[in-house]
């Protein structure tokens, strides 16, 4: 009964990094559907992810509780987290570069970051 839950062992460490990575603030339920009221911001985010995925972009979303390894892998993200704590999150990373902190991006912001990075 003393063992810890081996979350670190389950992380798919070798998967190629996604083009768009979103690091969430700690939350009970990332869908926005749980809880006494719906969270439209999170529903908007889910919709954006589906749109981007439909364009064959790889999008990953990380929870601090269930994907701590993803945070720890990214030194810049961890630096921000340690400095600004809650204010830093959510953090959006496009092609390994931080593009937005403290709020979720719009789809246009993500698109322009993707285009900028491609050039």
């Amino acid at each position, binding site marked *: 009964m003393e063992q810890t839950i081996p979350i670190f062992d389950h992380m798919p460490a070798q998967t190629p990094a996604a083009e768009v990575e979103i690091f969430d603030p700690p939350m009970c339920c990332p869908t926005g*559907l749980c809880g006494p009221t719906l969270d439209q911001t999170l529903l908007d985010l889910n919709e954006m992810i*589906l749109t981007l995925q439909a364009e064959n972009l790889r999008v990953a979303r990380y929870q*601090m509780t269930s994907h701590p390894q993803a945070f720890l892998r990214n030194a810049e993200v961890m630096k921000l987290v340690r400095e600004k704590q809650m204010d830093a999150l959510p953090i959006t990373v496009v092609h390994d570069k931080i593009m937005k902190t403290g709020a979720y991006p719009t789809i246009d912001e993500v698109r322009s970051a993707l285009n900028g990075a491609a050039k």
Partner: protein
Amino acid sequence: MTQFIFFSGKGGVGKTSMACTYAVRYAGEGKRTLIVTTDPASNLADVFEQPIGHRITSIAGVPNLFAMEIDPDQATREYIDRAMAPHRAAFPSQMVQVMEEQMSGPCTAEVAAFDRFTDFLDLPVDTDTSFDVIIFDTAPTGHTIRLLELPAEWSQSINEASTGSGQTCIGPAAAIQDARHKYERALAVMRLSDQTTFIFVLHPEAISIKETRRAIGELTKLDIANYRLIINGIIPPEGAENPLFAARLEMQRRYLAEIESSLPYPKQCMTLLAGEIRGVQSLRRVGRMFFDGESDPQVETFQAEQAVAKPPSYRLSDLVAPNSQRCTLFFAGKGGVGKTVASCITAVWLARQGYKTLLLTTDPAAHLGDVLGVPVGDEPAPVPGLESLWAAKIDPKAAAETYKVRILADARQRGRPESAIKVMAEELDSPCTEEMAAFDKFIEYATQEGWQAVVFDTAPTGHTLRLLELPVDWSKQIDVKVFASIDTAAADDVAKQRFGQVIEMMRDPQQSAFAFVMYPEATPILEAWRAAQELGAVGIRPGLVVANMVIPAEQATTPFTQSRRQMQEKYLAEITERFKVPLAPIPLLPKEIKSLEMLAELGESIYGVKMVRG
């Protein structure tokens, strides 16, 4: 018998006593035996007369016997500790704290209690810690079924989550992959007839039979096959020398015949005892009666307490009737003690006084329609035959469906694309949605305008407490919600205001009353007392107590009935002493309550008279 034995059945039928009787018997045969309860209102400690708690504890005086009470709160704390250990090392403490707070929601509590429960079905073999027999004294039926349904539902949502958007409502279950295999193994073990037996304890009564049939039906859908029945509380020949008990025995015979024809499983009867079962000696005695067919050697004699506490001068009707504002009544207590009957009597009485009354149940195993003698649906509807009375049964599954439809309709209206709506629909197929939807309904009716009285026939104790504590929990959750859009913040404010209103109402004796229902017996009193204390912690005090199945003094005519009546008198005095609030007695009747007329008559006898200091 198999290695794993589950005791199931409506609360109050003697499930724990029978589970303990089996445990003591197996331990006596030299089998290393563990009895585990997953009931949030466990009374194993009362039956064994020793503290047990949230760890495997050896039982004094019974070699080979061990017991454990799974405390859902403790299980949740342990689960969070285990899940958070790696994060504590890696992240700033402020964030760890937020994560921990957010893991303290009701979803995590469900996951954690279930997680603990499956640990015992998934024990490593051939170790020093293994047991020959593990007996589960499970939670009351409605809750039990939900608990046992979870593996199937979760396996499903975990599968979908791993192929779908990668998100799932069981987010707090950090070790999803690990947990999935554990839950699947647990369910596999429950399905094997050579490893697991489900023993249903029931009374020879309509409601108990119906409940057992329903419960077995649900389990059969989960491919569980190995059932046995124990029919408890059969009045012995010496008990039937009295007219009231003779009438009840007649009633029992009819129901025994019904059980024989409608429940084709191995079955065994257990006699109604003159006294009560407490302590190891008493369990051994019951074991000899049950397994070896000995007759009850003991007609217990109690010191007849002449100095029974005098009833204070009050009118029970003043406690339940609305004054200037509307009155909300909650009937709390262990499942099966008569909450439904007590709430029906009260609601019928209020309606007959002319108050526009809404009678509601939130118990998935409720039998409101049976007692009223009319069908009750999941939306409030007038009760035929009694003006001013409306009734509804909040079925968590139906509520979840409605909730889902409403949320998806809202999403469409906001112009979300079908692909997003499809994902939302999948996410909403989770056990948490049911919990949330039932709660949403509870709030809706607790704050609904237009009623002079609202009567809640609440769910069995553990579940009730969780449901009633939810408003408080959710307000806390909203306080820690860190990121919210303007839109969400506004919605949260409205929600918070509604919760605040409900909590305020529950705490205010001018607006509401909590009635604790119990049998005048040791264990039910202790359970009700614990439940009252837990509610006291959130600022809610009991308004009255209801004692059910009280043998009328004029019926105590034979040694058997006198012994039972004396036992009751002792406990009626104890109830008054402990709770220090007015007591409403419901008499033991020669037949079951299942019509408006009977309810009206009983209401008149309870609320229609002024109790005067003697």
